[in-house]
């Protein structure tokens, strides 16, 4: 809400610097987002009178104007369509510098001399846009500097972010109340006074509320014989200062009083209302209505309609109708001031898609008992500015009376909540600064503060007015000894540390992905988003490796080709039934591509291959002491050709391998990529916390080498399995220390060189024991695989 500093002065004595005031308001809960200085001083801009308008000889759209500026007659070329003879206009004379950055010089425009410029409000920095030049009232003194003629005074506009619980602060008086509380000064509210004539309003119009739940109160006043015309400059300027355009004196007064009190008002042309009657009812499904912005709306059931005896004339609390709008020939007015239930307005404004100044106030909750005050204030101004006679009284239908609430001032409870030590009297004094009277230990909450219903709400008022900065921070805290530890979270941290330690960079990617594309790529349904921001974020991902492919693509396209990345994040599995939450898992995924080492002098100049990724997994499992992993051939949407699943203790924990060509092509990356993805919850559950020491062997080991030639397609894992089967526990370890294919070997064969470690925990092994076992191994390999000793 935009608040004018000068306007506030009407209600509270102000001498404090506007910027300081802004800071003080922020500290009591009214965040001032911006202070805008409106310095209205335009050197070399004066009031002129257009004497004559003729066509520019060389340009169709330009006019040639003779303008009297008091001490001179100027010839000015003007491009505005609305320039007319007799108008008073702002004229920027040679030497003027306009706020939009334009310097006025003597110039020839299309061959004709121009000695200045007739300005629009936009060009003077007074409006964001203008349709044409600014036409001033006819009595504006000719030749005077514009700022002086219009009695401009520098103002400061405070743009306040009023929180939704404070509808009372959506008017200048409401803000002034807070300012008065800050400065500890009295608040001065205008006292509306005006003469009334017979007959009484009740004799002329009736008000019938058929939907008291959505419209608990509706008051109508009748003002006859008004003269609709432009508003005086002071009013126009106040409206403009806070960003509202002037329309005519009647509409402007209703807007002005809304900006003053926070109570929206609406003026009907009484002569356009049939049957001398206002009926408030709820709409029927499908009813149509044209609002004053000439838009037709199809209403849902239950929207509050203001009707005359025959037809709807306004959508209650949201916008008036085109059929009853005040226009220049309007003589008689019905002035509406009402209270609508916030829920009803919220619902209607939302489906109608209308956010009017009125609806935004009603939906937060206006003051049901401030209805008449605002109406009288507007009536007073209407009489002042538009003339007319006020019929006696108002027709005030108030079927659902709303009473002020009382809250017990439990000062100890408030002190406990805030950590303060204020007495009940001190609290009462604080609350009374914002018109919360305390009587017999009860706080009387006026109806303009619908947000205050509980002791906790009072605590907030005490806290903000006492000053949050005056409440000292607690020096100590009471803390339970028993603190739960989130071991899984700690495990995730460790996994990150281990991956980073292995030289793999962490990344974080978007969980929202293109649902259609991903379900095509993965062959699995993707959990969809109903109202996505875009197609590319229309679902939640069911794996991480495709996200990492995206990261690789991004970097490769930027010439970064050697990549080792990982991510730990959630994946979402479609539960089949969308009315259920998806199953969420926390995964680790990684991707490796490019050169194994940077291209430096020591580099092997080799690309990352399958054994890099397998080694990474093995090292990773080793770090977490996950012994004896099993590797199983595997195939899924991402990997297949060189791919394995990993099983630990019979549980599959993830997979890894070379990315399929189709996926590589989809992401348009040439170099082979190796990826893996693991379910970390499952890994976590397999971790063994207890570790028991085993004695270090005291006796020396014996190592033996053996190279055998076997068929190319025989797997090393099979050979090792048979080697183990052929021996006993004395064989501690087997390594493959060389694989050879080439000249000395038959085609289709390979030589596999093993190193065996034999050891006993109890004794030094004899030569004979070891030889026995080596013989058994060789025999087994011969029998099973036709292996030949090399």
């Amino acid at each position, binding site marked *: 809400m935009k608040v004018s500093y000068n306007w506030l002065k009407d209600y509270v004595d102000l001498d404090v610097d506007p910027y300081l005031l802004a800071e003080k308001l922020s500290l009591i809960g009214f965040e001032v987002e911006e202070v805008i200085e409106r310095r209205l001083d335009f050197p070399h801009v004066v009031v002129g009178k257009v004497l004559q308008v003729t066509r520019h000889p060389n340009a169709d759209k330009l006019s040639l104007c003779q303008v009297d500026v008091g001490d001179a007659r100027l010839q000015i070329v003007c491009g505005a369509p609305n320039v007319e003879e007799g108008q008073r206009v702002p004229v920027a004379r040679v030497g003027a510098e306009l706020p939009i950055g334009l310097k006025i010089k003597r110039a020839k425009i299309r061959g004709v001399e121009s000695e200045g410029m007739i300005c629009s409000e936009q060009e003077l920095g007074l409006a964001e846009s203008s349709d044409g030049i600014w036409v001033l009232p006819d009595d504006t003194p000719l030749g005077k500097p514009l700022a002086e003629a219009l009695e401009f005074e520098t103002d400061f506009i405070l743009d306040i972010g009023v929180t939704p619980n404070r509808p009372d602060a959506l008017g200048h008086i409401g803000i002034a109340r807070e300012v008065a509380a800050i400065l500890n000064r009295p608040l001065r509210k205008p006292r509306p006074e005006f003469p009334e004539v017979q007959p009484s309003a009740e004799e002329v119009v009736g008000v019938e509320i058929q939907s008291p739940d959505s419209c608990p109160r509706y008051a109508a006043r009748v003002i006859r014989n008004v003269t609709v015309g432009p508003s005086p400059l002071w009013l126009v300027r106040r409206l403009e200062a806070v960003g509202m355009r002037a329309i005519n004196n009647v509409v402007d007064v209703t807007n002005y009083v809304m900006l003053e009190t926070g109570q929206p008002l609406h003026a009907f042309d009484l002569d356009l209302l049939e049957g001398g009657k206002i009926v408030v009812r709820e709409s029927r499904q499908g009813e149509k209505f044209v609002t004053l912005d000439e838009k037709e709306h199809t209403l849902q059931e239950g929207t509050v309609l203001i009707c005359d005896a025959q037809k709807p004339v306004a959508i209650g609390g949201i916008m008036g109708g085109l059929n009853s709008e005040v226009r220049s020939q309007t003589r008689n007015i019905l002035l509406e001031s009402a209270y609508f239930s916030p829920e009803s307005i919220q619902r209607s404004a939302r489906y109608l898609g209308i956010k009017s100044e009125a609806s935004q106030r009603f939906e937060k909750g206006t003051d049901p008992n401030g209805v008449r005050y605002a109406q009288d204030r507007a009536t007073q101004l209407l009489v002042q500015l538009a003339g007319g006679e006020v019929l006696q009284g108002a027709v005030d239908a108030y079927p659902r009376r709303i009473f002020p609430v009382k809250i017990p001032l439990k000062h100890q409870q408030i002190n406990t909540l805030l950590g303060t030590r204020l007495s009940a009297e001190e609290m009462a004094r604080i609350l009374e600064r914002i018109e919360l009277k305390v009587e017999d230990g009860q706080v009387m909450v006026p109806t303009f503060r619908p947000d205050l219903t509980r002791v906790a709400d009072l605590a907030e008022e005490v806290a903000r007015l006492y000053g949050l900065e005056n409440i000292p921070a607690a020096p100590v805290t009471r803390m339970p000894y028993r603190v739960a530890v989130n071991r*899984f979270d700690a495990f995730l941290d460790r996994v990150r540390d281990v991956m980073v330690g292995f030289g793999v960079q962490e990344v974080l990617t978007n969980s929202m992905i293109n649902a259609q594309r991903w379900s095509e790529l993965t062959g699995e349904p993707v959990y969809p988003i109903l109202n996505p921001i875009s197609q590319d974020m229309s679902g939640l991902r069911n794996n991480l490796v495709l996200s990492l492919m995206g990261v690789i693509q991004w970097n490769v396209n930027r010439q970064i080709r050697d990549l080792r990345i990982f991510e730990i994040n959630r994946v979402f599995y479609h539960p089949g039934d969308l009315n259920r939450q998806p199953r969420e898992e926390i995964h680790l995924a990684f991707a490796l591509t490019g050169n194994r080492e940077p291209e430096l002098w020591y580099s092997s100049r080799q690309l990352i291959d399958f054994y890099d990724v397998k080694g990474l997994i093995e090292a990773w499992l080793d770090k977490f002491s996950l012994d004896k992993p099993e590797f199983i051939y595997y195939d899924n949407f991402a990997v297949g050709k060189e791919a394995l699943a990993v099983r630990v203790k019979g549980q599959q924990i993830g997979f890894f391998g070379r990315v399929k060509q189709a996926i590589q092509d989809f992401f348009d990356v040439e170099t082979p990529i190796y990826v893996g993805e693991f379910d970390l919850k499952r890994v976590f559950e397999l971790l063994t916390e207890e570790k028991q020491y085993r004695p270090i062997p005291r006796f020396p080991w014996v190592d033996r080498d053996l190279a055998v030639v076997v068929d190319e397609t025989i797997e090393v894992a099979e050979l090792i399995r048979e080697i183990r089967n052929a021996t006993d526990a004395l064989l501690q370890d087997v390594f493959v220390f060389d694989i050879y294919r080439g000249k000395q070997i038959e085609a289709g064969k390979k030589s596999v060189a093993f190193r065996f470690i034999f050891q006993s925990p109890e004794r030094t092994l004899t030569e004979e024991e070891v030889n026995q076992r080596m013989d058994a191994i060789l025999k087994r390999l011969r029998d099973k695989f036709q292996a030949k000793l090399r």
Partner: protein
Amino acid sequence: MKENIEQLREAFLTEIQTVKNLQELDALRVKYLGRKGQLQAYFKQLGQVDPADRPQIGRLLNELKQLFERTIAEYKSRFREEDTGEWIDLTLPGRKPPVARKHPLTQVLDEIKSIFQSLGFTIADGPEVETDYYNFEALNIPKLHPARDMQDTLYVTEDILLRTHTSPVQIRVMESQPPPVRIIAPGRVYRRDTPDASHSPFFHQVEGLCVDQGISFADLKAVISEFARRMFGEDIQVRFRPSFFPFTEPSLEYDFNCVFCRGKGCRVCKQTGWMEISGAGMVDPNVFKAVGYDPEIYTGYAFGMGVDRIAMLKFAIDDIRLFFENDMRFLRQF
């Protein structure tokens, strides 16, 4: 005898300087220290020395022997080192193991977590896809609240949505245990924002919650101030401003001194000296009622903070999208 010993010492020290390699050194060793060497000859003569002088002479001879041995050992090491003398270029870069880092957001979150863990908070967790009840209803956010609009929140069905904050974790934790509660809930949250320099449709929050008997705003002030001090330094000031959130009462927002100008006013903080961090407040009694805590007995505070925002402040990053592009030239800077 004394003079002879002194001469032998001089001769040794002169001669060893002329030695050029290990062979010559070995010849020298035999000459002076060998079984038939010069030193041994003096030891043999020791019996003929005046018994009164014998201990002193003996000591001198032993010292000389040690000097010879030590000096020869030094020369030996020197020759051996020179022997292996292949010249290597020390200016070439080394064989560097691959270096990687945690994502900057993880680094900042790690710091936040460790600060709060040291203050006795436990890390809690909940689903990213939530129900309307946990995300809004139980947090006292009314049905027609603008945050529940399809414009702001990403929905799956009318009742299921992508959580807009980590506050639902509060509710889940309180439902599952009686007070006292002291948790932080870090995690990813979603809003229906079009990405630009200061908006991402997903980002990261840490929600804090502390409930017990006698917890007050003074405690909240203390915990936020302590966090600020540990995160950004001793001299950081914290400011609290009243605000409004449906799930806290009183509600407030907190600001830290600008971490760049330390409150003096600069371009980053738009000359205000302050940086808005996030919201906090005392848990609203309606929230306690939703989880079955008695608001007459227990009070508590809750606070939130944006990990991305803190990281942006800490590293002077002006575009949130950089975090999720994962350009290596960005990630390697942290």
